[in-house]
């Protein structure tokens, strides 16, 4: 069943991707109607500079409609003289950051966006410099100024909350612990958080631009390093996008190894995250137990692949090692992990003082989660049954038995319980994977992609849905690589979750989302 949409200028179908090209006014209406009338989810939105190809900029908005394994992608074509496009943020709040980023990267400003400040670039970055334009260049003088970070080219005023008794608490970007940088501006009344504005993108590395200087096959090494604990997911999503674009199918065996890696990554992340929550409540035993189990799993990763973060397994066209050969080691480690994990959960859930801290803390309502396009554990804990493994089956997930667990409450405890249930699911999926044997070799031959071919790659990483979109140029080299991490979707939801909580509970709320700064900032 296709939603009735306005007639497009051109329509192109490619696997489960439907590209529909529109003019500015129609693009806006179609995007809004998809969300309003068809409950579509905005998966990602990005721009491309295709002036070399046909003299136009394009903006792609990728939607998926619940219950259908297809992506509807309205495309806005803009002439090379145009400098703005109609913003959809007022109707589709999930688009807020994407549109600001397009403005930063391409100099195309979203007309009617409620927040016109820059998103990715901080004050020192020169005004009017848009790195993802193909003709972008930067002088040495300008480069020297960025490093200093002191000169203000474009001011970035924080949102002010005025009134009696309201205190501003600036926190970060340098923190007391060894964690990534992020600045948080609290407006608090006493200890109660009234408003929080995070400032991120301190670790912006221009990764998407950097991909353009690699070959497609080498890009996987960069993808694996976008976000440490999601390394494998990034590798799979990137390879999947490139393989689809090239028109090659990986073997069943490679798909099985990737599925196994995905679940191992989910397992060590979820158990580690449950343990990390205990650091927020100062429950030392739980923290230590979580760290021990995570370490065992990461040691297992190292024995299987030579990398604690499962790096170097994925390659375009398949996988480099057959992790399934180590079935004995896998089963032995998982058995001991299962026992320890169960005793840890029993300990945590029977600790009244711990559960009391988690309950009703950092509540994210279902409505706000849906409107902001929250993904992963945070979405499922707030009652949104969104799991890319279910809605857009890939790898071997169409034949695996698993549930996309949801809870309604949306508090820190719900997020912890969802992680717990998914970890148990991952254990049983690994067992299931090891029961059968799989056809085919590890890799298939790589093809040269056609000119200006493009495709999506997507997985459910431990943090939530992760998307890559790749496009080749005339010579079959990367023309544009867009990556959208789950952290990028979930960061805007954190201020809503902490509203009304007290300042000392912020680290706990933040940990329960466990967002990656590096993955968000790229």
């Amino acid at each position, binding site marked *: 069943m296709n939603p009735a949409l306005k007639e497009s200028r051109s329509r192109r179908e490619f696997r489960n991707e439907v590209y529909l090209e529109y003019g500015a006014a129609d693009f806006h209406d179609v995007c809004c109607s998809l969300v309003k009338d068809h409950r579509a989810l905005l998966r990602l939105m990005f721009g491309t500079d295709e002036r070399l190809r046909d003299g136009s900029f394009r903006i792609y908005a990728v939607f998926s409609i619940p219950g259908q394994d297809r992506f509807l992608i309205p495309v806005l074509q803009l002439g090379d003289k145009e400098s703005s496009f109609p913003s959809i943020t007022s109707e589709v709040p999930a688009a807020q950051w994407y549109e600001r980023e397009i403005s930063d990267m391409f100099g195309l400003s979203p007309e009617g966006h409620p927040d016109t400040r820059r998103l990715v670039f901080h004050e020192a970055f020169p005004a009017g410099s848009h790195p993802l334009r193909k003709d972008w260049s930067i002088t040495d003088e300008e480069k020297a100024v960025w490093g200093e970070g002191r000169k203000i080219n474009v001011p970035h005023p924080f949102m002010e909350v005025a009134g009696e008794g309201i205190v501003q608490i600036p926190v970060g970007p340098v923190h007391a612990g060894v964690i990534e940088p992020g600045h948080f501006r609290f407006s608090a009344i006493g200890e109660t958080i009234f408003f929080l504005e995070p400032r991120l993108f301190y670790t912006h590395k221009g990764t998407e631009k950097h991909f353009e200087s690699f070959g497609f096959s080498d890009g996987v090494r960069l993808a694996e390093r976008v976000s440490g604990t999601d390394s494998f997911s990034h590798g799979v999503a990137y390879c999947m996008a490139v393989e689809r674009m090239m028109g090659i199918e990986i073997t069943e065996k490679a798909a099985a190894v990737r599925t196994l890696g995905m679940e191992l990554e989910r397992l060590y992340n979820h158990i580690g995250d449950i343990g990390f929550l205990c*650091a927020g*409540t100062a429950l030392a035993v739980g923290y230590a137990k979580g760290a021990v189990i995570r370490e065992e799993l990461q040691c297992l990763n190292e024995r299987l692949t030579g990398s604690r973060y499962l790096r170097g397994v994925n390659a375009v066209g398949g996988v480099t090692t057959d992790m399934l050969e180590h079935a004995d080691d896998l089963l032995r480690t998982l058995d001991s992990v299962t026992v320890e994990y169960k005793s840890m959960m029993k300990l945590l859930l029977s600790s009244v003082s711990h559960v009391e801290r988690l309950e009703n803390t950092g509540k994210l309502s279902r409505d706000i989660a849906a409107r902001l396009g929250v993904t992963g554990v945070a979405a499922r804990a707030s009652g949104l049954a969104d799991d890319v493994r279910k809605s857009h089956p890939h790898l071997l997930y169409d034949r695996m038995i698993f549930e996309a667990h949801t809870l309604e409450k949306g508090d820190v405890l719900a997020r912890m319980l969802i992680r717990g249930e998914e970890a148990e699911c991952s254990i049983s999926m690994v067992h299931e994977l090891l029961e059968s044997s799989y056809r085919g070799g590890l890799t298939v031959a790589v093809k040269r992609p056609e000119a200006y071919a493009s495709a999506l790659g997507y997985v459910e990483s431990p943090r939530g849905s992760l998307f890559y979109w790749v496009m080749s140029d005339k010579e079959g080299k990367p023309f544009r690589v867009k990556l959208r991490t789950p952290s990028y979707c979930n960061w805007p939801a954190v201020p809503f979750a902490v509203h009304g909580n007290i300042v000392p509970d912020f680290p706990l709320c933040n940990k329960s989302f466990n967002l990656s700064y590096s993955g968000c900032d790229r």
Partner: protein
Amino acid sequence: MTIPSSLIETTQVALLLAAAPLFTGWVKMVKCWMQGRTAPSLLQPFRDLAKLFSKDVVLAENASWIFRFTPYLVFGVSVLAGAIIPVLSTDLLLSATADVIVLVSLFAIARFFTALAGMDIGTAFGGMGSSREMTIASLAEPGMLMAVFAVSLVGKSTSLSQMTAVISQGGHAMLRPSMVFALLAFILIALAETGRIPVDNPATHLELTMIHEAMILEYSGRHLALIEWAGMMKLYLFTVLGIAAFFPWGISLNNDLPAIAGALVFLFLKLGFVGMALVLIETGLAKMRIFRITEFLGSAFLFATLGMMSFFMLE
């Protein structure tokens, strides 16, 4: 052979300076064992202090004399407090000059200046820490005084030496309901005053959750060393105060050498035991939400009041 009480006093202060880091090291050690980790050496706190003393002090540009003066004051006050609590013997040079009410005020002075220093440099964390610390103090100090009064009713004096002597000679003092209530109140208050879990987490790196650590976040070098050392002494002092008031057996009533030596052995045994009990509390509980502390300290006050009332009604 009798030792002059001036020598006892000197020994006690020396013991305070040396045993406080050792005790902190012991607590850390047991904590590591409980969590299945390899423990650092018992001497680690000394190494940390030595490291801090050898580092340069970094001062905020707008730090006033209060900020520079506070570490010395806090350290001095802790040493003075150590001189009036009977640790080895009740026959102390300073015991007549200061009673238990003075002791409580000494801690209050140290806290007052730490809170001022926290606000002095004008950072958000300092102010936040000071505000939280004073909230806790306003609840803990009345409870502390009530608990101490309940004990001094049994000990028939507010002089610490006098109380200790009476209670240790009383034999069955611990069986009194007033003492049991006072002990419960004292434990709750000591946890809050020394910044232990479930009230504060001394090991946290999460600056937003800190209470005591937030106030001293801007200190460095020898200033930080003095404050850290004073913090260790505070934990030790509350422990020996609890021992002197509730479990005084072993503390010498005269200045005989064998009795003092015996007191020393008893002290280390008791410290070891208290350290383990503290770790049990700290590992078994999560830190409570900051607004729960009012209920926590409210119940401490209630216990202390019950202690006093049961003294008049039951004993």
